[in-house]
């Protein structure tokens, strides 16, 4: 026990003095989400506003008079003196946004209660042009429709027999659970793994590469204690990374502008002591599992580089079950509760939503603990092999 603590203390000091670890395992996960969320909302917001404010340059051919007079000149700039060919060329060269032409016989068709054709040319690469043109026509069409209803002696309700009213009674908590609940574990599981990876390379392979392992093995301390001291350090850094991701998310939400008050309130209800305890009860064995398996895998590598090339692809294996939890239709049940990583992601979703069943939760925590123990034992077996430890 004493040895484990001695090794742990030294490895933690050593790791925390490493700027690369601090940056990738602590700072990056803490800052990534706030920056990303702030950046994305800011960019989308300005983009949307810009699009909204933009005045479309359009040309209209053979228009009925009542249509032209309806056009809001704050939103559209009418270009005159255009023909089909010229208009299309100008759209392609971006000097015109859209060209609208009322087809031959349009006025006649409308007068006879038939369908008239309107052709619109535009570029789909210019977002929102199509929508704006559609709205323009639909508004006009509604006026014609209203007139026809009156002419036929009908009422508006006669052609709209059913009106459906929807009431969403899902608690805000559950809605957030479905939304953020899938995304949140995806992020912290990955960061937990990445957080474990660098220290594992440094404390296991690094020690071998530097040759310091040799002297370490000549001290009267059991190899198991030495390994445990290392694994605990690795797991702790992974845990810190995951914790930082969660912290970063809440900081981001707290300081983000334009978040509805009821959303914030619901979020406040979710993040309580119980949530944090339930989450960390899963995260602790998970990080030990990551630390143990990474140690077992990189112990055979001869150099830092080799270890890196073995460990990096593993992050994809971790991402797959975490991403699966984002797929609609995959729910927590007795089968998914047994699949590591996926079970944790699904459980987090349900904990956030407040719908987790105690049985499922206990099975998940226990299975993660069993996995963690197995990973540590396997890494110990690897660590005890002469050929593995020495260069």
């Amino acid at each position, binding site marked *: 026990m004493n040895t484990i603590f*001695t090794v742990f203390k030294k490895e933690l000091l*050593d790791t925390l003095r490493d700027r690369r670890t601090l940056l990738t395992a602590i700072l990056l996960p803490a800052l990534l989400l706030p920056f990303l969320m702030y950046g994305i909302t800011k960019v989308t917001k300005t983009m949307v506003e810009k699009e909204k404010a933009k005045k479309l340059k359009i040309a209209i051919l053979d228009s009925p008079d009542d249509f032209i007079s309806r056009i809001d000149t704050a939103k559209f700039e009418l270009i005159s003196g255009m023909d089909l060919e010229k208009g299309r060329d100008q759209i392609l060269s971006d000097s015109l946004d859209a060209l609208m032409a009322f087809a031959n016989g349009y006025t006649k068709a409308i007068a006879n209660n038939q369908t008239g054709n309107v052709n619109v040319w535009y570029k789909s690469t210019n977002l929102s042009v199509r929508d704006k043109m559609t709205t323009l026509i639909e508004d006009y069409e509604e006026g014609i429709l209203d007139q026809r209803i009156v002419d036929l002696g009908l009422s508006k309700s006669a052609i709209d027999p059913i009106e459906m009213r929807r009431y969403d009674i899902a608690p805000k908590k559950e809605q957030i659970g479905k939304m953020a609940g899938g995304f949140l574990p995806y992020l912290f599981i990955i960061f937990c793994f990445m957080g474990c990876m660098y220290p594992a390379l440094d404390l296991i392979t690094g020690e071998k590469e530097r040759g*310091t392992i040799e002297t370490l093995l000549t001290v009267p301390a059991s190899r198991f204690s030495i390994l445990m001291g290392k694994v605990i350090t690795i797991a702790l850094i992974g845990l810190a990374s995951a914790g930082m991701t969660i912290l970063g998310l809440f900081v981001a939400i707290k300081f983000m502008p334009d978040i509805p008050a009821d959303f914030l309130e619901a979020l406040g209800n979710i993040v309580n002591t119980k949530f944090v305890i339930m989450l960390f009860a899963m995260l602790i064995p998970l990080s030990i599992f990551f630390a143990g398996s990474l140690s077992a895998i990189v112990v055979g590598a001869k150099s830092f580089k080799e270890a890196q090339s073995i460990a990096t692809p593993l992050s994809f294996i971790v991402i797959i079950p975490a991403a699966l939890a984002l797929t609609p239709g995959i729910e927590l049940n007795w089968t998914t509760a047994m699949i590591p990583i996926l079970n944790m992601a699904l459980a987090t979703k349900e904990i956030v939503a407040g719908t987790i069943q105690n049985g499922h939760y206990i099975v998940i925590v226990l299975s993660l603990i069993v996995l963690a123990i197995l990973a540590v034992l396997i890494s110990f077996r690897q660590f005890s092999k002469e*050929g593995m430890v020495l260069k």
Partner: protein
Amino acid sequence: MIQVENVSKQYKLNKKQKKELKTTASSINAVNGISFECQPGRVFSLLGPNGAGKTTTLRMMSTILTPTNGDIKICGQSVTQNPTEVRRKIGFLTGSTNLYDRLNPEEIVKYFASLYGMDDKVFKERKEMLFDQMGIHEFSKKRIGQMSTGMKQKVSIARSMIHDPDVVIFDEPTSGLDVITAHNIIELIRDCKNAGKTVIFSSHIMSEVDLLCDDLAIIAKGDLVYQGTMDSFRQENSGISLTEAFIQTVDRNSTTHA
């Protein structure tokens, strides 16, 4: 006191290694049933060309590797039966003076003292003495990463001597060091001898051997090819330099083997 009793070390070969060595054998012997003894208060030198099995032998002595056959007793304790007891008695130092770059000498020496389970008071006295002796105090708060090889070497020595071991094992301790830095090691070996410790070191630098050594053994391709005192080795090879004598001894035995 070190007693090496008919020790062998066999390495299993994997497919890749078999290909590299162009052999179909499933294992190779790095050390082939060698025996010798090192006495307290004397310096024992283990000589041999690269790949002869020196490092493997010293690693077996320091319990990093387990012998396939035979046994080694350090102060009466067997490396196979009581490795933990053996570890308490030995100080181990290799030529590759690697330490933890982000720690300072104080922290490194303290770390090893804790791993040896040393009492705090004893540790402090011992550390002061070693740091005084080698002048480590002036850079005791500096990180290893910022130190010169000479400074690192001194810290390595302090680290391996902190628990005042009865037996010291040095694996090519001066390799890669300049003359001045290597001198620290030579002084250390002398001090250990004068303190009545058992010292064994491996080398292929004959001037060092000549300077320090009381007894010697030469190994080649895992076999013991010479064992005796330094004096008798000198007498048997009078007229030629020690380096020549060493080369001839190794050559004679590898040709008879082939």
